[in-house]
């Protein structure tokens, strides 16, 4: 076996060991191994290195569930394929529209929920809570508040300025309603959707 061929086979050995070679390459290495004791020793040596790499586990300090919770919070602020800037702009635009409609809100004389929450554009969207924000609340205040309860606006404003807010699976909607209502300078009303 010439030096160039030997070197070529030696370069392929690690990938023969990890099973990622193409069929042709695999067959070439296999044939070379049968004919060359030195290559077989090298394969054995690589196997020892592979074992050591696998046994060392620096990932034991990985963030785990806490990291996932932090991600869920952050992706709640955006949709896939959209930049955070666009999402904030959308929230701000929705809020401005909502404030305009809120100014026309005749009263809080609630009728049947279906009548209140039905969207002019068609069927109602999903959402665990129905929330109305104060006319003076800023987009930043709303965003911060919703982030604190892991809430995401999924629809709205309705014709009367109501927003539908989704919560993470397993969240206690009643508790969240209490926390939203406690922020009285931002939230005008909040209740669980039926």
């Amino acid at each position, binding site marked *: 076996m010439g030096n160039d061929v030997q*070197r070529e086979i*030696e*370069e*392929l050995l*690690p*990938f023969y*060991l*990890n*099973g*990622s*070679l193409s069929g042709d390459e695999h067959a070439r290495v296999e044939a070379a191994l049968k004919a060359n004791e*030195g290559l077989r*020793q*090298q394969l*054995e*040596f*690589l196997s*020892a*290195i*592979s*074992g*050591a*790499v*696998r*046994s*060392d*586990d*620096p*990932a034991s*300090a*990985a*963030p*785990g569930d806490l*990291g*996932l919770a*932090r*991600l*869920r919070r*952050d*992706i709640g602020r*955006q*949709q*896939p*394929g*959209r*930049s*955070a800037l666009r999402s904030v702009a959308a929230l701000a635009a929705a809020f401005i529209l909502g404030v305009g409609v809120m100014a026309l809100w005749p009263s809080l004389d609630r009728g049947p929920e279906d009548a209140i929450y039905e969207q002019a554009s068609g069927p109602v969207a999903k959402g665990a809570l129905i929330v109305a924000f104060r006319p003076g609340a800023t987009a930043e205040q709303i965003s911060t508040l919703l982030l604190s309860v892991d809430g995401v606006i999924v629809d709205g404003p309705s014709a009367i300025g109501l927003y539908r807010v989704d919560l993470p699976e397993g969240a206690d909607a009643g508790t969240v309603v209490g926390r939203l209502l406690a922020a009285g300078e931002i939230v005008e009303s909040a209740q669980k959707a039926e």
Partner: protein
Amino acid sequence: MGVNAKENSVDELVAAIAVGDRLAFDTLYRRLERPLYRFLILKLNDPHRSSDVLHDVFLEVWRSAAAFRGQSKAQTWIFAIAWRKAMEVHRKGERVTYQESLPDQIDESPDAATALSAAEDATAVRACLKGLSEEHRMVLELTFFEEMSYPDIGAVMGIPEGTVKSRVYHAKQLMLRCLSAKGAVRGSGRNG
């Protein structure tokens, strides 16, 4: 696509994330969190910084999944994002510490038999691994832990396939040299 089985491939999970499937995102996180963290900490040598970059990687996956066109395997694409972000940290000079490297001069004729004997000692092998430069350690990591092909490693690290193969080859030579020396020391200790 609904995601309710752990058997979904990374490609399928990314396709589901592209249409906003949060369950797929959770599944992808649980599948790749530790391999990516392991990859990042080898590059950055800083647990806190690695956690932050890991977070950024998954956020970018969430944001960019719809733009992924399948030019490579999805897992290769995600590792390439991690590599790029880790390199950005390097460029900003935010890496906290540096690992020492073995000399770049490679003895082309290390004592293979002695090295092979020393390789039976896992502690010695790990000690030699830790002495490798970051570049050599990374290719070994991607080869033996992630079991990537050399074209995939090239795509992740942005280097030609030939460079991947020669880098792994040199890493192996450095390990041979290191373990050969350790074996010789152990041998002389026994004889003396």
